[in-house]
């Protein structure tokens, strides 16, 4: 059933495939994301309780969902690489980590900026924000481990093991943080929950969410291609590609 996927295990095929879809995805991403942003900023209705600060919701929630989704994607890639010895999966995991970390940071900062007018403080140790902060540490740890190795194959294996340990730990961490929170908090109810969304709010949310998904795919494709080149630099197809690139640059310079 999966026979059609087999050619893509070849780095060269995947490299060119990623290169072909990048232009399409970028155009779609730019279009959908701009529509989403403009809709969210100017046309979506203000919330009954939270006023116009609710517009932060349209960035904060997609970023938070994507941060977790990308981590699971990394875990799947790490699992594939360890179980089926797919070298390419290591490259894709390495490509996903910085993207996930950026979205986690965006989720934290927008959450903080939303919390200040709502709760009166830039930061609050509630279950969701704390779990997101720990997720950021997990991402940065994977990136640091990957950079610490000279040999990229070893780096991929080590980072893969760390990712898998992290993904198993993630539900445990979330549960324990929530438990810790109920022990100490009691009365404060998190106002950043998903409200019952009216249809007028759902549309800009969907546009922003899918725009972000497409943007993430574009960036991961670009980084994936860089990782493939870096890991296969002695192969002849890489050599010919690089010299073609060089001669194109020389003719452009002339």
């Amino acid at each position, binding site marked *: 059933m999966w026979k059609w996927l087999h050619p893509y295990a070849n780095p060269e095929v995947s490299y060119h495939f990623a290169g072909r879809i990048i232009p399409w995805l970028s155009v779609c991403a730019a279009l959908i994301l701009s529509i989403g*942003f403009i809709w969210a*900023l*100017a*046309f*979506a*209705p*203000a919330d009954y309780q939270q*006023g*116009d*600060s609710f*517009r*932060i919701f349209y*960035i*904060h929630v997609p*970023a938070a969902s994507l941060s977790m989704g990308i981590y699971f994607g990394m875990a799947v890639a790490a699992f594939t690489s360890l179980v089926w010895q797919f070298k390419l999966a290591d490259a894709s995991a390495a490509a996903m980590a*910085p*993207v996930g970390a*950026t979205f986690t*940071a*965006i989720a934290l*900062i*927008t959450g903080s*900026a*939303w919390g*200040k*007018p709502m709760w009166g403080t830039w930061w609050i140790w509630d279950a969701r924000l704390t779990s997101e902060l720990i997720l950021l540490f997990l991402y940065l740890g994977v990136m640091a481990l990957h950079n610490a190795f000279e040999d990229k194959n070893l780096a991929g294996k080590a980072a893969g093991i760390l990712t898998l340990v992290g993904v198993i730990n993630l539900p445990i961490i979330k549960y324990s943080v929530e438990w810790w929170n109920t022990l100490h908090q009691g009365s404060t109810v998190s106002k950043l929950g998903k409200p019952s969304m009216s249809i007028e709010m759902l549309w800009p949310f969907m546009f922003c969410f899918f725009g972000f998904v497409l*943007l993430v795919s574009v*960036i991961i494709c*670009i*980084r994936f*291609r*860089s990782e493939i*080149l*870096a890991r296969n*630099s002695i192969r002849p197809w*890489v*050599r010919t590609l*690089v*010299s073609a*690139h*060089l001669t194109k640059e020389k003719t452009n310079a002339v």
Partner: protein
Amino acid sequence: MQFDSFSAFIDMGGYGFYVWLSYGVAVILLLMLIISSITGHKHVIKNIAQRKQREDKLRQVRKQRQKQDKDLKSDKHQEAVE
């Protein structure tokens, strides 16, 4: 349009600073990510090109040296024969 005027749009019902801070930071971080991905790709290609040039040069030098050795050996052989 939810807002009556451009200044109302910037003000965001009093929450202007926080809304624009969030959108601004998100856009800046995303731009940094995109730019770093593209320049990283160019870097990788440049590094591989440099390494390839160095290896090609080394190979050329080695070939030249081998040729020189061969010429020297054939000269010596000629002298020995004479």
